[in-house]
């Protein structure tokens, strides 16, 4: 009986000690309440959402009535379920170039003889150029266009007379990218995130926690020395890891290697800039944290709000408006989209320079903030 009471006492002491520590860490308490809600809102919206607002370029070369009804049907989809938005394009070449540059997700070309062929039942065709590197969006667009085109057949042709069918000619602009392959850029970004979380600011918080930081602050090291030094060391380690992960991902999923040096250089540049963006962001947020537990909790939070809505797993177009707004300032979203373009479409600098410029500017702003906010006194 005595032994039991002692065990209970010992156990309750261990529990009590833990509770007390937990209670004195308000950031951790707030986060443990907020985290599940944030997970629900972000994860839920990242995968469940219906695709919306996929930009479809339409080149209508036919002046007949049937192309107009195809367009009417598409407009009905754009107005109803809003899967797509219609962008008029002048010619086929411009529309396809737009798909290649990521402006459109697909381009629909209605040839000049479309209406005539419908009337003559001469095997009418429309062409659909798809950015098939984003399989989920491509699927949704193909479905929508199929519906819009198929609808006129049932309207204008008696059902018994199934003498013809309008043909939707799929033009996959790129080699087919399967789902596993499409995850590789996301996996690279995830490895960059994990690297940035365990280097950089984490080291100074750890030094502070064990009391070693005092010795650094007593030396002539400036704020810039400390912040930039830790970010550079984190960059070297994280970049090496990310390159290895990319190589392994490419090898395992069998992505064909890009042809030119430019693509390799661009991928390295994107990895470096994504790493710098995340390291600087974390330094700006956590530069004054005193407990490594706060870094841990904050990392979990950042991972949820940055990774899942980044387009790495599911198209950004499926997100609700507020999450799409977040994606607009999310460095991971830019890095994922640029890496996908380079890896799957062989994109050149001209296509991804906007992403590169954003990441560079993001890094500059966050690193400045990190240096300004870093406290060089105890």
């Amino acid at each position, binding site marked *: 009986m005595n032994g039991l009471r002692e065990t209970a006492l010992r156990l309750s002491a261990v529990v009590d000690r833990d509770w007390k520590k937990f209670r004195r860490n308000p950031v951790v308490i707030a986060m443990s309440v907020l985290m599940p809600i944030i997970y629900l809102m972000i994860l839920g919206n990242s995968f469940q959402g219906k695709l919306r607002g996929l930009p479809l370029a339409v080149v209508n070369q036919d002046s007949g009535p049937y192309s107009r009804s195809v367009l009417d049907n598409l407009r009905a989809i754009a107005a109803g379920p809003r899967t797509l938005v219609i962008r008029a394009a002048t010619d086929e070449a411009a529309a396809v170039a737009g798909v290649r540059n990521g402006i459109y997700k697909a381009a629909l070309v209605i040839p000049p003889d479309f209406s005539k062929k419908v009337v003559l039942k001469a095997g009418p065709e429309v062409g659909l150029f798809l950015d098939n590197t984003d399989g989920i969006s491509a699927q949704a667009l193909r479905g929508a266009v199929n519906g819009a085109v198929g609808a006129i057949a049932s309207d204008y042709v008696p059902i018994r007379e199934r003498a013809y069918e309008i043909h939707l000619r799929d033009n996959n602009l790129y080699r087919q990218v399967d789902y596993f392959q499409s995850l590789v850029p996301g996996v690279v970004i995830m490895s960059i995130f994990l690297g940035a979380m365990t280097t950089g600011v984490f080291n100074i918080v750890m030094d502070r926690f064990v*009391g*070693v930081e*005092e*010795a*650094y*602050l*007593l*030396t*002539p*090291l*400036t704020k810039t020395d400390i912040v930039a030094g830790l970010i550079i060391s984190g960059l070297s380690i994280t970049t090496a890891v990310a390159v290895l992960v990319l190589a392994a991902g490419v090898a395992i999923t069998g992505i064909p290697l890009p042809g030119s040096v430019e693509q390799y250089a661009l991928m390295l540049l994107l990895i470096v800039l994504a790493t710098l963006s995340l390291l600087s962001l974390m330094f700006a947020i956590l530069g004054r944290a005193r407990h490594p537990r706060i870094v841990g909790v904050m990392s979990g939070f950042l991972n949820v709000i940055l990774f899942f809505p980044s387009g790495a797993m599911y198209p950004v177009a499926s997100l609700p408006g507020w999450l799409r707004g977040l994606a607009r300032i999310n460095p991971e979203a830019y890095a994922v989209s640029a890496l996908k373009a380079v890896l799957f479409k062989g994109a050149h600098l001209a296509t991804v320079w906007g992403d590169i410029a954003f990441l560079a500017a993001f890094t500059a702003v966050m690193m400045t903030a990190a240096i300004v906010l870093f406290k060089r*006194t*105890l």
Partner: protein
Amino acid sequence: MTEGRKAVQVSGITKKYGEAAVVDNVAFEVCEGEIFGFLGPNGAGKTTLVRMLTTLIVPTRGSAKIAGFDVVREAGAVRRQIGVIPQAMTSDTDLTGYENIDIYARFYGIPARERKERIQYLLETVGLAARANDLVAAYSGGMRRRLEIARVLMHRPKILFLDEPTSGLDPQSRRAVWELLDKIRQEDTMTLFLTTHYMEEAEALCTRVAIIDAGKIVILGSPQELKQHLPGKDVISLTLEKLSDAIGDSVKNLPFAHQVFAEDNSIRVAVDMGARDLPAIMEVIRSAGGKVLSATVHEQSLEDVFIYFTGRSIRDEGPKKVSLLSAGMPRRTGG
């Protein structure tokens, strides 16, 4: 006190946390080449003071100049002039001893060749040359402290701050640190500023001592000067089985007892000649019904100075006061 150039000039420095002043309007000067000690119990404000002087904490009020540079406005220049050994161990445990010093020296821009030679020299000086390539995680507390002393000397600081350099060390390691500091002092002219709550340390090392209590300087002077404030020359310490008021009064009434302090069951009596006066005190206690368990006679030390000026012993961390049995102002009796 010789009139030299000032290494440290402090005026009216104050640090408040909320309403409580941890360091309260402290002013003093330290000349170049001095070994200046801040002596006080834990919680007296010593570490806060050192941190303000070494640019780690911004003072609430007042100012301080180190080697002529202001600690707030010219913090960068101050950091180049000083070396600091904080109270906590600050060497990296996952680096070797050699790496710890080498990296630290690079913070000061010391070129490679000079680093190599000086690290070797300093590691030999502190007796760690043989362990230079071991991880600091494998060092004992005393070794780690010696490594930190070697590290802080790399850039030849003009003023060396040591915050409780021997706290937590065993007596043997403590003595080794003292000897080391003495040796360093003889080789380089450096100003040393140390805080301690060990009386022997302040007495053995310092040319001048400031006694600090509850954030204020109580008295400042050379150990000799401070002791001259005390009546008598020797102190007789007695531990009784039970100390009563009657016993205290009878000791107090002895003509040769300048000053009597009682704490728990111990009693300290300031006298002129301890060996001569001890038997008489024992006799008085016995006739008042007391039983003496132990008795020692020693020359007055800084500990007695501390008790004299603060009314409590330095070992106390709480507010407990020792009762001052001899009422009135302390008498100054010559001889």
